[in-house]
C-alpha cells in the first residue's frame, strides 16, 4: 500500500491545518453573531482533526483516527449544549449578539 504522504508531504497538511485554525480564530474575534462564533469553533476543531489524521497516516498507526472519533463525540455534545444555551439566551434577551451579553459585567 502506497503512503499518500510520499506524494503530498506532511508539511503541506501542517500548513493547511494552521491556516484553517487561524481562520477559525479570526472568526471568533471578528463576528458578533454567536452562531457564527460557534461555526468558527467547529472549523478550529476540524483543523485539529485533520492534523490528527495526517499524523496517524505518517506513523501508520490507527490510534490517531480513534482519537478523532472521540473528538467528534465531544464536538457533537458541545454543539448540542451550546445551541441549547443560545436558544435560551435568544428567548430571554431577543438576540444572539455577543456584545449584548453584559449581565455579568460588574
Amino acid at each position: 500500500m502506497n503512503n499518500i504522504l510520499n506524494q503530498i508531504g506532511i508539511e503541506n497538511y501542517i500548513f493547511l491545518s494552521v491556516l484553517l485554525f487561524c481562520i477559525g480564530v479570526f472568526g471568533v474575534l471578528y463576528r458578533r453573531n454567536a452562531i457564527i462564533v460557534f461555526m468558527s469553533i467547529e472549523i478550529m476543531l476540524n483543523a485539529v482533526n485533520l492534523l490528527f489524521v495526517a499524523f496517524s497516516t505518517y506513523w501508520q498507526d490507527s490510534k490517531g483516527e480513534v482519537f478523532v472519533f472521540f473528538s467528534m463525540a465531544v464536538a457533537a455534545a458541545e454543539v448540542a449544549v451550546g445551541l441549547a444555551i443560545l436558544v435560551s439566551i435568544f428567548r430571554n434577551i431577543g438576540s444572539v449578539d455577543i456584545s449584548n451579553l453584559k449581565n455579568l459585567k460588574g
Partner: protein
Amino acid sequence: MSTILILFYFLSAITLSTAFLTIYSRNPIHSAIYLVLCFFSIAGHYLLFNAQFLALVHIIVYAGAIMVLFLFTIMLMNLNNEDEVHKPRITRLGAITVFVLLSSALVLIFMYSKPFVGEYPTTGEDFQSIKKLGTVLLDDKDGFMVPFEFASVLLLVAMIGAVLLSKKEKPGK
C-alpha cells in the same frame, strides 16, 4: 506535479475559501451552507488518506447532524435577515492583525523548524479499515474501551442538558 498533488491543492483551496466565506458572509444561512461545503472538502481530505470509515463518519456527524442542528437553530431564531451591526473598527482591525500575526508566525515556525524530509515509512499493513479501527477501539487490554464508555455517558449528559436548557420555563414559577 502528480495528480494527487493537484487534487490536494484543489481540495485545500475549497476548504480554505469556504471556511473564510463562512465567516465573511453576512447571512447566517449562507454561512451554514459554506460550512457544509467546508466539511465535505475535509471529508475529501480524509478520503485522500484512504480513511474511508472516518470520511463517512465525518459526513454523517458533521454535515448531517451538526449542520442540521445549526440550520434548525438559525431558522428558530429567524436570523436570516442581515441586520447584524458591525463591530467597531478598532475591534475588526485587531481581529485582522491577530489573524495575520498568528498565521504568519505559525507558518514561519513550521517552515523554519526541522522539515520532515525523506521517505515516509510504509509498513504495508492495514491500519485504517473498519475492522482494524474497531479492534483498536474496543480491545479490552490496550484499547479505548473505557474512554468509549465515557463518551457515551458524555453524550447522554449532553442530551439531558440540551433538553433541560431549551425547555420553556413555566410562567408560574
